[in-house]
């Protein structure tokens, strides 16, 4: 008995020592990964590649990719979700394909539509290929496009269709006229090929059961569902009789560089890294805290790392609803807040650094179209504690007299909250943190009586003016805007920036946002994509998410996936 007890105790100690003591990134498993060290990187660069190996000329058999979330719907008009942003365009075609984030209509690649021509500001003529069919052989015509756009709004809750599109006029089976409600940068780009837009055959959809829609849909994209286990994995197979037989007319989204794509759900961040190291998956995305296992300024041997620019801006909004917040009626207090916030320290507080995030110099990120290079390093509410203190005192309040309610989410790192609170306290404010889950946060953020400052994460589909329009267009809010501004001049400048989109208009809006001190973009985090080094290039789609079908592989690449 004593011997058994001793052996078990020793085993328990060994587990602890081995488990805690090892260097995960330098394990034997890694070195077995093969060949030369992949290298790449380049913070905020679109698409990077490893130098190892020669690019494959043909299709590889399989790739296993770790998905970050388990709840998603792959039916034609399913609700948007993170996994859907990765794989919707594997399954369903759109009129045009966005080859990279922020591409303009001229830069977009034809997919189901042969051409999209501007008739006037709010009318576009669309011509479809006349030989499109889905994976079940149904021909796709103009009527299916109209049906799909209607269902995208009613079923998939893609609200921007309703905001942008007035109606689609069918000319014949292959020709349509898109009549828009508004125009400007990003509008037709969205309607032509946003990642949320999916085209599906009307007759098939209406005749299909829920089971078929979920597990065996008729797809217009280059891949079809081979098997789907909700919450666990989704296996896609290249459609053999894909409608676009002319290889020269293929776009980034319907390239078939892989025969079988196995998306495997691994929601826990560190487990995705372990699965990569353990050769259970070929590629995935990781959080900043895991990057050092694969990257130390350049990719570590065995890995290909692709770091792409962030499309979401972590932002502080100031409540501008007069009478509801002490900040709304006192410009000095607002200035004190914005000068007090040190974007760089807040970024570090979230466990990010220069290789995983960057400071924003406007309400938007450098990846967005229209973000001016001249803004970088400019005086954009630069951290100045002395000035913050001065502004606070100019407001006539004693230290600690003004209490600020900071609304945030529990999913935000505590370190970020700590730095923001410390910054504001140093300026003289008293801070009350209201940190809620996403659902509660959403409920309170539109109520001006609930907060004085809000920390939120805001993005756009490409142009920075879309980001501004989403948040400052009074048409989208019952109470002015995202932070309850009621400012006609702001709206006027916004209309000019979103319709004309000239550099001057963008600059004017940016300057005016600064002037009224209602918002400060803090920082954006990069998308971190990691793959085995036999994957030479990890492409991204128009939403900066992995475009697995277009990954470039080394000659003879064999998936490590088990």
């Amino acid at each position: 008995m004593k011997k058994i007890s001793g052996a078990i105790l020793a085993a328990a100690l060994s587990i602890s020592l081995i488990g805690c003591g090892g260097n995960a990134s330098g394990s034997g498993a890694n070195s077995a990964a093969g060949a030369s060290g992949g290298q790449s990187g380049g913070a905020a660069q679109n698409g990077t590649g490893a130098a190892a190996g020669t690019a494959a000329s043909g299709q590889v058999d399989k790739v296993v990719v770790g998905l970050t979330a388990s709840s998603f719907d792959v039916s034609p008009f399913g609700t948007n979700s993170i996994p859907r942003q990765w794989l919707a365009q594997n399954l369903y075609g759109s009129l045009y394909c966005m080859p990279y984030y922020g591409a303009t209509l001229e830069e977009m690649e034809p997919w189901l539509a042969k051409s999209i021509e501007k008739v006037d500001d709010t009318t576009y003529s669309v011509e479809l290929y006349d030989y499109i069919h889905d994976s079940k052989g149904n021909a796709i015509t103009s009527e299916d496009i109209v049906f799909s756009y209607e269902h995208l709004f009613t079923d998939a809750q893609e609200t921007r269709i309703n905001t942008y599109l007035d109606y689609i006029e069918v000319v014949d089976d292959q020709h349509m006229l898109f009549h828009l409600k508004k125009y400007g940068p990003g509008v037709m780009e969205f309607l032509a090929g946003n990642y949320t837009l999916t085209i599906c055959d009307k007759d098939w959809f209406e005749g299909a059961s829920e089971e078929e829609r979920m597990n065996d849909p008729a797809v217009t994209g280059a891949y079809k569902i081979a098997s789907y286990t909700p919450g666990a994995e989704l296996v896609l197979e290249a459609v053999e009789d894909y409608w676009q037989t002319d290889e020269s007319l293929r776009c980034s989204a319907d390239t078939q560089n892989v025969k079988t794509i196995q998306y495997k759900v691994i929601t826990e961040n560190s487990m995705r890294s372990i699965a990569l190291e353990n050769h259970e998956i070929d590629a995935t995305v990781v959080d900043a805290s895991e990057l050092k296992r694969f990257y130390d300024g350049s990719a570590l041997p065995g890995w290909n790392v692709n770091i792409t620019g962030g499309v979401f801006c972590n932002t502080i909004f100031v409540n501008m609803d007069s009478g509801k917040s002490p900040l709304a009626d006192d410009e000095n207090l607002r200035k004190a807040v914005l000068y007090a916030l040190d974007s760089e320290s807040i970024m570090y507080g979230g466990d990010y650094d220069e290789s995983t995030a960057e400071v924003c110099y406007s309400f938007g990120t450098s990846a967005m179209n229209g973000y001016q290079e001249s803004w970088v390093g400019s005086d954009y509410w630069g951290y100045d504690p002395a000035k913050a203190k001065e502004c606070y005192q100019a407001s006539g309040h004693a230290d600690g007299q003004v209490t600020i309610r900071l609304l945030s989410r529990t999913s935000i790192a505590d370190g970020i909250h700590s730095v923001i609170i410390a910054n504001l306290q140093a300026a003289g404010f008293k801070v009350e943190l209201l940190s809620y889950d996403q659902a509660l946060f959403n409920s309170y953020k539109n109520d001006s009586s609930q907060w004085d400052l809000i920390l939120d994460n805001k993005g756009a589909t490409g142009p920075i003016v879309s980001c501004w329009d989403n948040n400052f267009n009074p048409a989208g809010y019952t109470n002015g805007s995202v932070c309850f501004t009621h400012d006609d001049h702001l709206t006027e400048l916004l209309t000019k920036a979103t319709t004309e989109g000239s550099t001057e208009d963008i600059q004017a809006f940016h300057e005016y946002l600064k002037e009224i001190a209602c918002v400060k973009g803090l920082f954006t985090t990069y998308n971190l994509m990691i793959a085995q080094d036999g994957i030479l290039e990890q492409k991204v789609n128009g939403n900066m998410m992995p475009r697995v079908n277009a990954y470039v592989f080394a000659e003879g690449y064999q998936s490590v996936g088990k």
Partner: protein
Amino acid sequence: MIRYIGKRLLQMIPILLTVAILIFTLMYFVPGDPVEIMLGDTATPEQIAAARAKFGLDKPYLIRLWNYLVGIVHLDFGTSYLQGSSVASELFLRFPRTLTLASLSILFTIVVGIPIGIQCAIHANKLSDKIWMFLTMLGNSMPGFWLALLLVILFSVKLGLLPSNGTGGLEYYILPVVANSIGSLADIARQTRSSMLEVIRSDYVVTARAKGLPEKEVIWKHALPNALIPIITVCGSRFGFMLGGTVIIESVFSIPGIGMYMVNGINSRDYPVVQGSIIYIAFIFAFIMLITDLIYAYVDPRIKAQYVKSVKKA
């Protein structure tokens, strides 16, 4: 006995109905709108209102409650707002995985925990007893998440013996089962030890020993059956909890079970998912408690006699 089982099954109906009304009411009053989460930042107030109407969220409380209860009677728990799939079929799909994980975990717990408890009781206050009690305390206080990661690092990353995540053959369940069982195992070992200590000192055990019965027979035939009732209670409630879904283990090992489904539903205020999952858990728990009571009757004829009497009186 069959009448007793029938009576207990009938008793479940008001329990489940009460749970359904309670959870519906709680979800109704909890702030947080699923439509706002679904539509995101770009939705206008009109679009939000239209979506609320589409999902019936604009109807008064009583009408929504009535519709919900009518659905439950037809075993229709509604459709997930976010995934668009039927909650009942999703629960049905995920149940085998949770059942496999829970069954293997409780089996491991019983097979390892009870013998440890017996050994500790037999050698009470000796060194081996102290070491085991220390280890069980360690097991009880060790967070499942941390233990799971240690096991993965050792057995998957370092030794490459077992898969680190996912579902498939039995090998995929080894690490999750061990990580899931350690806390329960420690509990059951301690419970067994304390029950056995009480029984071992009884007169009939002393008599059995005095008659010259071998020690093994004394322990396994005479002492253990009389010490089993509290152990069965702990096992039953532990199994019930495990069947309700072990969120952390499912999350670490990417097992798409009931726990993960429910937590995702709570976070996104997906009312049908949360309500359906909780009713499932209530049913499973009540059912496991019924099984536990039946096992009481199996191991102790006195309890069986009580059940029969109570049914006759009723």
